[in-house]
């Protein structure tokens, strides 16, 4: 026994010495924390893990002597499960960087933990703009979109088109509240009025009660501050209750390509909403998406969340490769990531701001009519683009302590 312990001690000492000598640690562990089984699993889920896998392959780091591990887990849309997994990943599995982390409730919880443990989160899935505002962190980059951007783009466009009275149908948790708050602010600022709101539990299957209340409000626009299965069911049932034919307009404040696919063009046609990625934007997005969809079990095109996982990791890999090794120091790596401009075929050229906000253009899309679509996944018409510097919350309005004013 004594022998064993001394051998163990010797081993530890050697390992420590070796660690000192090998200053350039080239090990990285990536954790995809997402909804693998619930209502958001088509937006992130297995597709996010695939996107991470593709980023690892395309980075070419393995050929340069890097060893990159990938783990994935299901947080079941529960903040407590999310933080338990995250804590174990950081403490036991030594995960360096979290990607995806959709669901704003989970994201805000993991955000605190990642900061406390000095890890990194590239959040590509959660919507809440608080991640780069009051809750901003030197360890977190919010990559793809946020509630402020969605509100700014979709909200403004609809008010300008004459939709000046709004009724909100809101998912009753952090994300829905943030999206409702940010959109209401834009509506009021653009000269519109919010006349009511109803909050439904996450993952509801029947929306008829809520839709009737929205219908009775006579608001011109019914803003859906929800996502995933909640949104698709709302849209489908709104058609049933004659809401759109009655002259009210549905505003999908957060819709993904998977939602449109699942609704079918017949129901979804004419909807306006904002995304920052669409597979058919240019040659770069098309090439990636084709490779992606071939490897997906249901042949789905990537959502913007999944595209963000790829894009974010590519930038991360470039940064640590330039640093010559992995310092396992979240603040240090994120600071370096903010210094360098980003460039990848999916989101084009961009930058990361001091508050952790990644900047790129936002696209306002309209869903095609069935007659305009050439086949599966050919769903969007581009109707407007907000340039990167105007798409997100200006730093002058930011409550983030990292921003020097």
């Amino acid at each position, binding site marked *: 026994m004594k022998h064993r312990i001394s051998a163990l001690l010797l081993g530890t000492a050697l390992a420590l010495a070796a660690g000192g000598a090998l200053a350039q640690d080239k090990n990285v562990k990536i954790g995809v924390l997402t909804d693998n089984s619930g209502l958001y699993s088509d937006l992130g889920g297995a597709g996010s893990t695939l996107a991470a896998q593709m980023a690892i392959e395309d980075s070419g780091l393995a050929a340069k002597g890097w060893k990159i591990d990938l783990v994935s887990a299901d947080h079941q849309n529960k903040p407590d499960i999310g933080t338990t997994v995250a804590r174990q990943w950081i403490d036991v599995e030594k995960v360096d960087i979290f990607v995806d982390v959709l669901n704003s409730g989970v994201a805000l919880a993991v955000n605190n933990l990642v900061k406390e443990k000095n890890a990194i989160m590239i959040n590509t899935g959660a919507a809440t703009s608080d991640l780069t505002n009051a809750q901003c962190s030197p360890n977190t980059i919010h990559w793809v979109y946020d509630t402020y951007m969605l509100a700014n783009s979709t909200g403004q466009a609809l008010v300008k088109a004459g939709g000046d009275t709004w009724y909100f149908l809101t998912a009753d948790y952090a994300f829905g509240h943030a999206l409702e708050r940010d959109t209401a602010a834009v509506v009021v600022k653009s000269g519109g009025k919010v006349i009511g709101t109803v909050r439904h539990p996450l993952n509801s299957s029947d929306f008829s009660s809520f839709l009737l209340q929205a219908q009775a409000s006579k608001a011109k626009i019914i803003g859906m501050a929800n996502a995933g299965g909640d949104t698709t069911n709302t849209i489908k049932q709104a058609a*049933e209750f004659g809401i759109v034919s009655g002259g009210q307009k549905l505003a999908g404040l957060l819709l993904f390509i998977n939602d449109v696919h699942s609704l079918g063009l017949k129901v979804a046609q004419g909807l306006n909403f904002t995304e920052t990625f669409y597979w058919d934007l240019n040659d770069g997005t098309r090439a990636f998406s084709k490779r992606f969809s071939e490897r997906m079990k249901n042949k789905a095109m990537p959502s913007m969340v999944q595209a963000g996982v790829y894009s974010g990791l590519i930038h991360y890999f470039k940064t640590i490769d330039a640093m010559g090794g992995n310092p396992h120091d979240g603040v240090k790596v994120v600071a370096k990531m903010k210094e360098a401009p980003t460039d990848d075929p999916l989101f084009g050229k961009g930058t990361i701001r001091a508050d952790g906000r990644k900047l790129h253009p936002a696209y306002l899309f309209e869903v095609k009519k069935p007659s305009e679509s050439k086949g599966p996944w050919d769903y969007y018409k581009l109707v407007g683009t907000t340039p990167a510097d105007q798409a997100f919350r200006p730093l002058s309005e930011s409550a983030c302590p990292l921003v020097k004013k």
Partner: protein
Amino acid sequence: MQALYAQLLVGLINGSFYALLSLGLAVIFGMLNIINFAHGALYMMGAFCAYFLLNVAGIGYWPALIIAPIVVGIFGMILERTMLQWLAGLDHLYGLLLTFGIALIVQGVFQNYFGSSGLPYAIPDELKGGMNLGFMFLPIYRGWVVVFSLVVCIATWYLIEKTRLGANLRAATENPTLVRAFGINVPRMITLTYGLGVGLAALAGVLSAPINQVRPLMGADLIIVVFAVVVIGGMGSIMGSIITGFALGVIEGLTKYFYPEASNTVVFVLMVLVLLVKPTGLTGRAA
């Protein structure tokens, strides 16, 4: 006031799904003594069955109303023959765990192939549109759901409580050995009953396909509420579960109007209250 009428009606519509599903559960529990946790998964299979009939075989909604319950019912009977029957006489917990496991497997398989967002299924042309009732715009399809499920519920109740077949069934649950002595094939009867309960779940699935997205998790989201309905109504009571199904739909609808944030908790609050006051459920008999 108008809005209130509308909410009552919407509640009744949701209540019809609760009633159909809890009826199936009550039949299975009453006759087989199995707590069928796979009920939600079988409901989902009914909806998927309708989807495949339409998109693969070109068979529309009306035939699907008959075919899907039969197909899924047969699947259920195979389950009963190959697995559930071996649990007869054991503690309820075994049946519950087995069916829960089956539900997880079935849902997992569907989710693996079809994702979570679901597939579209349109309302049949004959039932499209709606009518203005003055206080609300009632989609014709929803009206159809209420009427049709009410008819099915009453027919099932009649079959079990008032016919000779039903009498045999009830006798077989009470004392299988004696009933067998009369020359009735009890195991076959139990298999058929399970098939009937499962068929009811599948029927609810077909009915709900045009309203909700056809999703692998559609049943998982509903089944917990339905279990609460059965517990409130009294395990195994046929009429009890029908009435509680409709009533709870209405109560839930009202909650969605007065305090929407609590709408997915209200059923469970009621369940707790009922269990505290009357542990056998509203219409259940003491064991």
